[in-house]
């Protein structure tokens, strides 16, 4: 196995493609970007050494086309492929296809992905490795009677989950015994439709757990290290909104336990490269294996910020067959880091994805502020891809300072032309509930009223003064422009000074 990658195909788009390209450039590894018709002007294309068109805008015709990607890799002489997250990153068959084509897949083997991807098998493997899983069925549940038997044992409420599901999809929560039978049938047919497998299993539903995950790195030489936890409990509909590390509730002893469990989990399935073991933590500080994300995680930067370890660089080293640059005892965590996900969506309209063209963009600066984004003025935000516009990440000496820095940075972040969730993120950071650190996955739902409160009287007054002074400016501007020869046509102004006599 070579000690250096010759050329890397970055099989992704948006901020994560940019992130990977930057790491490659710093390592002096040539890169090939791929793009769909919607992404010709994208930042990842402009930051690559070579770029190849792979198809029309829909992902199914471009970024999800494994054959096309491997063809591009062969044509451009790439000996490695980084899948990023999403798209083909957790497709075990694609990992296998890469290896078969002589292209190093920068991630785990197909085998390891399949073991972790099948939730029923993963539960069994974790138990074998001595990692606690939530009480539930030992395997897939085949009929309602069996379901009722298990529920009688573990007690309500329970979750019925698709065995092939993940990322929060395919989950049903049942609070009453009489709902069990119909929920079971529904979950089965949903799983069949969404994941092409009707296998479902049941697990005890933890009320208000915290969602805490552990980053691991594993090389080809048997080294597996963990980089500590990330707190990901601020979620909306099972999608993470804000992440921080350290978790406000994890102390060194618990970190050690969770880290050791994550390392055991990775070893159990022969995992290599970067991965994340997700746990649920209940009110008694007992943690349960949830699932393993067999890829680079969106929120990986917060771990980088406090450990000083460049996770993507480690991924490249591992893929090249090199040993990890660090041992467990070298991992030190200093300070506090927070990340928020800035998305093109409309919080006042049920978070529907927003589309548009970015007109004005002001990015925050200052010390210890990091922006991972594919964002630029003129970016067309369409409907084809996920709405993540940018990740804003800060580092500080402690949590309080990190919150203050993030609030400051968010207030500097101006995007026009596309609606974003920046105001909503600020509300979270400004809430007493978040600041106390005492929160769980039910936080956003519980604080809905405060997080979506209308502007206060004073705020409305300020906004009115700003709006009027600027509207006044705009009217003067328009009057001047239209008075010029060949000035703007009236029909744009929507103003008429006429009335019928």
């Amino acid at each position, binding site marked *: 196995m070579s000690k250096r990658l010759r050329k890397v195909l970055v099989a992704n788009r948006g901020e994560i493609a940019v992130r990977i390209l930057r790491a490659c450039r710093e390592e002096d590894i040539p890169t090939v970007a791929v793009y769909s018709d919607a992404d010709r002007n994208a930042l990842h294309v402009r930051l690559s050494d070579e770029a190849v068109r792979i198809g029309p805008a829909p992902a199914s015709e471009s970024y999800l086309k494994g054959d096309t990607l491997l063809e591009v890799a062969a044509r451009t002489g790439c000996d490695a492929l980084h899948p990023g997250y999403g798209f083909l990153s957790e497709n075990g068959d694609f990992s296998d296809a890469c290896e078969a084509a002589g292209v190093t897949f920068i991630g785990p083997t197909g085998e390891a992905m399949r073991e972790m991807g099948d939730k029923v098998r993963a539960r069994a493997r974790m138990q074998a490795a001595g990692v606690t899983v939530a009480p539930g069925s030992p395997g897939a549940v085949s009929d309602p009677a069996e379901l009722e038997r298990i529920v009688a044992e573990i007690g309500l409420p329970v979750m019925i989950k698709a065995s092939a599901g993940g990322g929060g999809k395919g989950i049903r929560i049942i609070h009453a015994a009489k709902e069990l039978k119909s929920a079971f049938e529904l979950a089965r047919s949903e799983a069949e439709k969404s994941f092409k497998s009707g296998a479902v299993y049941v697990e005890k539903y933890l009320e208000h757990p915290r969602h805490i995950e552990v980053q691991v790195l594993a090389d080809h030489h048997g080294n597996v290290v963990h980089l500590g936890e990330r707190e990901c409990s601020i979620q909306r509909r099972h999608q993470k909104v804000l992440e921080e590390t350290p978790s406000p509730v994890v102390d060194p002893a618990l970190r050690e336990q969770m880290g050791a469990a994550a390392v055991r989990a990775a070893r159990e399935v022969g995992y290599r490269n970067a991965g994340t073991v997700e746990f649920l933590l209940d009110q008694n500080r007992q943690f349960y294996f949830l699932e393993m994300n067999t890829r680079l995680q969106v929120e990986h930067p917060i771990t980088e910020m406090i450990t000083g370890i460049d996770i993507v660089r480690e991924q490249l080293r591992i893929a090249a067959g090199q040993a990890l640059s660090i041992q467990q005892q070298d991992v030190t965590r200093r300070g506090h880091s927070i990340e928020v996900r800035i998305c093109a969506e409309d919080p006042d309209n049920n978070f529907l994805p927003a589309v548009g063209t970015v*007109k*004005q963009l*002001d990015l925050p600066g200052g010390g210890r502020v990091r922006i991972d984004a594919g964002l630029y003025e003129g970016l067309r935000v369409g409907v084809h891809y996920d709405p993540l516009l940018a990740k804003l990440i800060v580092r500080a000496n402690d949590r309080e300072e990190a919150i203050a820095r993030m609030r400051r940075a*968010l*207030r*500097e*972040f*101006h*995007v*026009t*032309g596309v*609606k*974003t969730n*920046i*105001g909503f993120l*600020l509300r979270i950071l400004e809430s007493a509930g978040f600041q106390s650190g005492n929160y769980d996955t039910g936080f956003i739902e519980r604080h809905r009223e405060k997080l979506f409160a*209308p*502007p206060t*009287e004073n705020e*409305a*007054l*300020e*906004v*009115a*003064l*700003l*709006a*009027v*002074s*600027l*509207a*006044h*400016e*705009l*009217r*003067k*501007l*328009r*009057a*001047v422009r*239209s*008075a010029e020869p060949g000035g703007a*046509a*009236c*029909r*744009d*102004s*929507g*103003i*008429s*000074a*006429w*009335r*019928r*006599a």
Partner: protein
Amino acid sequence: MKYFVRVGQRELEVLVQPASIQPESGAESGAAPLGLCLSVNGRAYQVETSAVQEGEKYSVLIDQRSFSVSIDGDGRELSLIVNGLAYQVAVEDERERVMREIAGPGGAQGGDMESVMPGIVRKIEVEVGSRVAAGDRLLILEAMKMENEICAEWDGVVTAVHVSDGQTVDGGDLLVSLAPATG
């Protein structure tokens, strides 16, 4: 000029005057007159706007308090981003409100028209026989220190121009007669 602003569920009335007519305490004579004086509920605010990028990005000082504001919109429906927070705001000046109220629903197909406000006629752009389409500019009426475009409300032919360049008109004076377009 009075403006009506809607922010969320609230509507506010804001009176706008040039700041120079406000007595400036301690201001050095000869200093450039800055910004506007805005009054809300009897309280006055000195507001100075400076375009960072015209029509897009402004630095605004309200009684010296500094706001970085990005805007998107036509001046009536505005999206504002104020120090990171986004607001949808509707702004209407009194003239626009009056005209919206008079216009009412539906459109007419021809007739005489009169000025709805006092002003000075500038730049008549049509003559008898001119064929115009709805939205075409007919003349400019200078009023309230602003040049207001006077546009055809409907397609038609000019049958009479009742005013001349530089003429002062009152609200209610006839300006132009339009016959409905034929054929």
